[in-house]
């Protein structure tokens, strides 16, 4: 199975590569359209800032390519947010695969932003989350969240309920970091690689 991790100017690709190795997959990192076209599955990771990341994707024409991927795609964190329509982070028009908005957490007494650490997910029946217990803990680090929609397959409540994971056709994504979410995260990566 050929797994390609989309290369762009955002962090945590190394963590994703290591996590995939732990579940037995040697992934390659690339932003070449030809390589991406032959991938069985694509992972779109990322921590970083939305507008800078979108600029890079545009400079490589990836903004046109990504919405046309026909293989299973897994977006992670910023990678998920960029699949939405728009992000409040520096007023960024995103890829628009999901008709959803990404917003900054409102400041509420008693809640720190960024949302950093382990929080639980309320899950619905979805192949990506097969075998995951409801209310399982996953690891987050983010200041922006994707609003809930008909595509939400898992929800976390922090300040307000937001999309912890989403799916539309071949596009899957998680706001949390499966590559850093211990056994729960490894199971989700395993599901993406083997069940979808």
């Amino acid at each position: 199975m050929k797994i390609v991790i989309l290369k762009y100017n955002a962090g945590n690709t190394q963590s994703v590569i290591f996590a995939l190795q732990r579940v037995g997959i040697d992934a390659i990192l690339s932003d070449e359209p030809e390589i991406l076209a032959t991938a069985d599955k694509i992972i779109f990771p990322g921590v970083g800032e939305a507008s800078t990341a979108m600029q890079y994707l545009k400079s490589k024409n990836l903004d046109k390519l990504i919405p046309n991927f026909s293989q299973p795609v897994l977006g992670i964190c910023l990678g998920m947010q960029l699949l939405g329509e728009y992000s409040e982070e520096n007023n960024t028009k995103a890829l628009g695969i999901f008709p959803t908005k990404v917003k900054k957490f409102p400041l509420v007494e008693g809640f720190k932003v960024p949302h950093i650490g382990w929080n639980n997910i309320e899950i619905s029946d979805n192949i990506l989350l097969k075998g995951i217990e409801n209310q399982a803990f996953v690891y987050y680090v983010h200041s922006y969240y994707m609003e809930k929609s008909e595509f939400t397959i898992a929800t976390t409540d922090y300040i307000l309920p937001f999309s912890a994971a989403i799916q539309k056709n071949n596009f899957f994504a998680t706001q949390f970091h499966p590559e850093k979410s211990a056994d729960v995260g490894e199971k989700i990566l395993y599901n993406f690689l083997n069940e979808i």
Partner: protein
Amino acid sequence: MLAKRIIPCLDIKDGQTVKGINFENLKNAGNPLELAKKYVEEGADELVFLDITATIENRNTLIDLVKKIAATINIPFTVGGGIKNADDVARLLEAGADKISINSSAVQNPDLIDNLALRFGSQCVVLAVDTNFYDNQWFVYVKGGREITKLTTLDWIKEAENRGAGEILLTSMANDGTKKGFAYELTANISENIQIPVIASGGAGTKEHFLDIFTKGKADAALAASIFHFGEIPIPTLKKYLKEKGLVLR
């Protein structure tokens, strides 16, 4: 509910884990990779590795260790010690560290915080602050706690937050190594005055100390070293106790 985090810290010297009291009298505490694996199995929420030698010849040893850790463990980890510039950070992040912590170099050059936040994102910039009570105030210390600065602790932390630090690792030198409890009032005062999470460090000796730092001290995470290394408080026992007291833990 967001869980309170329990974070074992491994002080690394020449590739080995060490622990001292009040930053002195270092004692060997074992192989960091083995300890890290053990902590992950026991349910640690994150790990912190502080390279306390951080001489140039040992940097490569550290990078190798970071790669091994990143390949092995499946929870986030922070690496600190001797980080001077963005290139040091890039090397550690490329080796697989999730976050880096900076301390003295940020005091010397506060713009470093802005630069790192801009280039790598605030989520990976942990500002470590060593502080002690002097002349009725908490001051920031640098160089592994050997040198006092003119900065008062809350002011420095607020400045760092504005510059883009993502988390604060707050170590009370007055408490560190004593096992008599964390600096509760100081931690609460910092935590209530900033938006970003505070990791409290220094003084953990009993399970009750952890309960107090999360309740009275308003900490988001608690870090400790020797009580974990020497098996005094097993992490599962600690987490079970805190859950029984009504706190949310993973």
